[in-house]
């Protein structure tokens, strides 16, 4: 932001008036903690002793009304606005790269209604999802949204980046889990999406704002679905020696019933992460399956599962590994259990129908390993549908292969990403499955959408004519 001391002081008083003096900060600690998210580049930059771009003002509105006032001020002065939920995003979507106002949503954390009749919880978008889960648990229900970042990410953050949890195959992605949302538009208008998500009253407003990453407005409240706790949840681990057989087995099974968890790890990831966390020692591709619900149905499903997978030569490892995996399902996200600085790494999750997904996996593996021999490639497939699956493929560069110069490290990181995602696109994948786009992948959005991008651009121009909302994100 190009400001000056006098004007900044004026704007500060207006923001303080909007959200309260105590909820508006220009302190160093507030700026720096909002300048680095889970994006590898921001972490690397800080690790090398550099400061990332920082917001000029950090504000924490308490509700939609206060958010509206902030956006009206921002629009008047034409100040960039970046929305921050938990900061657990990997794509740099929450980074205030142009300075300006950073809106931290976590004061909007009130749980308004735990509605066991309508089977939803209405809450502020700044609520930590784990807290929503606790609220559901207190009345014997569950949110069934269990991503690794459950403990630290917000309802709004998951919605804004189209997040997903580990039981997605049965219960859905975050975009399946929301009923109604309250959204503050860039001009400060407060709007509500339709009272129910399934309707014929025009296009689905929810789906316009879900995944918009703060570029079209700020989600301030949402009604999130809750579910009955399953009477029974069972696990079964399998080992495939042939990845193709695993895909065929999974596809056939999902035509018969929906499992809750289905995760297939390629031999490289089985031999590394799965061996370390779950203890599977044998070579091959490990697949963990969970099925749950009414006891009688689970019994039947187990028989179908075992019969189906046996046809494809899967070795039945019993329930032990699956149960262990469930216990450790978010352990992967703790330091020491996954990649971390000084390693260079990235997760290029993409999704495609079954006729393309395996080809994408092999093509990306080949592209990364041949173009960047210093990179190790591992992958798993963790979200499955009747029609296709998601590949969670990762590259890791270690030791002396990680450039010491931060700009060179940035360049290599960008190059690997570009090659990887372009390969996915060339074989029928998408830019991303559930981490979002942010600043990391914005440049590739036009490559995926081509002229379709004008739909997003039209929405952006109409709703945010001053271009203040999260600039340089989502390719907008």
């Amino acid at each position: 932001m190009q400001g000056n001391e006098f004007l900044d002081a004026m704007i500060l008083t207006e923001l303080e008036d909007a959200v309260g003096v105590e909820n508006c900060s220009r302190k160093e600690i507030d700026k720096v903690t909002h300048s680095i998210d889970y994006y590898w580049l921001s972490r690397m930059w800080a690790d090398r002793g550099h400061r990332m771009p920082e917001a000029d003002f950090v504000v924490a509105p308490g509700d939609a009304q206060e958010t509206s006032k902030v956006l009206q001020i921002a629009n008047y002065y034409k100040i960039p606005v970046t929305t921050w939920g938990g900061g657990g995003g990997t794509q740099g979507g929450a980074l205030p790269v142009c300075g300006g106002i950073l809106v931290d949503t976590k004061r909007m954390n009130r749980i308004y209604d735990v509605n066991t009749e309508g089977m939803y919880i209405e809450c502020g978008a700044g609520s930590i999802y784990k807290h929503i889960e606790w609220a559901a648990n207190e009345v014997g229900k569950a949110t069934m949204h269990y991503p690794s970042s459950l403990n630290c990410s917000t309802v709004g953050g998951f919605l804004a980046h189209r997040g997903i949890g580990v039981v997605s195959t049965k219960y859905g992605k975050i975009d399946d889990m929301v009923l109604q949302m309250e959204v503050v538009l860039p001009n400060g208008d407060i709007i509500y999406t339709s009272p129910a998500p399934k309707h014929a009253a025009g296009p689905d407003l929810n789906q316009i704002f879900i995944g918009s990453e703060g570029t079209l407005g700020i989600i301030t409240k949402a009604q999130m679905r809750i579910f009955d706790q399953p009477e029974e949840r069972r696990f079964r681990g399998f080992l495939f020696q042939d990845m193709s057989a695993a895909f065929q087995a999974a596809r056939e099974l999902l035509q018969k019933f929906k499992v809750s968890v289905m995760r297939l790890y390629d031999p490289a990831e089985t031999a590394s992460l799965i061996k370390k966390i779950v203890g599977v020692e044998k070579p091959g591709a490990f697949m963990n399956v969970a099925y749950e619900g009414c006891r009688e149905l689970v019994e039947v499903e187990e028989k179908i599962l075992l019969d189906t997978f046996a046809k494809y030569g899967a070795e039945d490892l019993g329930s032990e590994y699956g149960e262990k995996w469930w216990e450790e399902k978010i352990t992967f996200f703790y330091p020491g259990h996954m990649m971390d600085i000084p390693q260079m790494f990235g997760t290029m999750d993409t999704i495609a129908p079954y006729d393309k997904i395996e080809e994408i996996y092999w093509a990306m593996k080949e592209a990364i390993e041949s173009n960047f021999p210093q990179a190790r490639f591992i992958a798993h497939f963790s979200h499955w549908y009747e029609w296709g699956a998601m590949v969670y493929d990762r590259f890791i560069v270690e030791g002396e292969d990680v450039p010491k110069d931060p700009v060179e490290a940035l360049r290599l990181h960008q190059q690997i990403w570009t090659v990887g995602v372009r390969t996915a696109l060339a074989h029928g994948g998408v830019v991303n499955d559930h981490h979002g786009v942010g600043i990391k992948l914005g440049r590739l959005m036009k490559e995926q959408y081509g002229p379709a991008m004008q739909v997003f651009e039209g929405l952006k121009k109409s709703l945010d004519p001053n271009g203040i909302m999260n600039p340089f994100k989502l390719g907008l």
Partner: protein
Amino acid sequence: MTEKSKKHVDACRFCWMCRHICPIGNATGLERNTSRARALGLSLVNRGVYKLEDVVDNLYECACCGACTKECVTGYDPVLFTREARLEAAMEGVLPAYINRLVEHCLETGNAYGITELDDGLRKAVAAHVQKTDTLLFLGVDARYKVPAAAVNAIRVLEKAGVDFTVLMEEPASGWQLEYLIGAASETREQMTACAGQLNAYKKIVAFDPQDAVVFKREYRELDVGLTAAAVTFTSFLSDLVQTGALAAENSGKEVVYQDPFQLARDLGETEAARTVINAFAVCREMLLHGRDTMWAGNLLMREWMPEVMEKVAAGRIRDAEGVGADTIVTASVSEYASLKAAKQEKVKIFSLEELVLGQGNES
């Protein structure tokens, strides 16, 4: 900063996995109220990007309740580096003025509040027990100077059980406040050593305040200040009295939830003693987060510089009780009792363990 703390700082600086259980972060919703923010700030200090004084305020927005440490499956300890950084700030002379004032009070009067006179009612209650016995009831600074009615109740409970005990009219500072404010500085050690010297005149020390109990049983040992008297928690002492029948109990059948003080539950691993007492007089139900997973409900010391946040912290814990349909919370920490009472809400009643034992109403 030690190499161990630096390692923990670097591990925590990009990790938010304990965000959801931070009582202060939950209360404020502020990003800086995370272990990650504290670690990130300190990591940048270690890298020369910031000075310690740039981030020092943030060090004092932490209760050191250890919920984050307990939550970390890898074993990193944000309390470790927070305390170490406070000590460093003290040694570098960059403590915030509001902390300096409290430290000075601790050194001058033995308590951070700078209070020297006892409440009249408490003075009378103590006067009945100044005669030397084998057992010392150590009241602690919060009870003596901030919630004297609680101190009187502690005395009454032991009287009810027929215990022969001593209370000091001039009680030495245990050092927990200094330890919290500036860590294991030489001043802290001196205060603890002086206290241990006085306590050693007794066979058994019953620490009414869990904050004192922790330093007697942990820090005194770690710092080797020479405490030879046996220190026990007030709750475990009561539990024994109940189980031996010395403390006669009549169960009202009333359902309550128990607020585990983190000092007892996490620091000392004591979760059942208070429940034994409660279940003798009432019926103990549980909040979702209880035992070692307990969520802190605020304290008196931090009210000195962030009173509004303490009210939010307490309100959050009261909501936890409401969430399981409870209408009464029983506390075993005078500081949490005062904090919860200060939230001034009407739906959930706040009782101390002593009030429950003495059959007193919520108005006491």
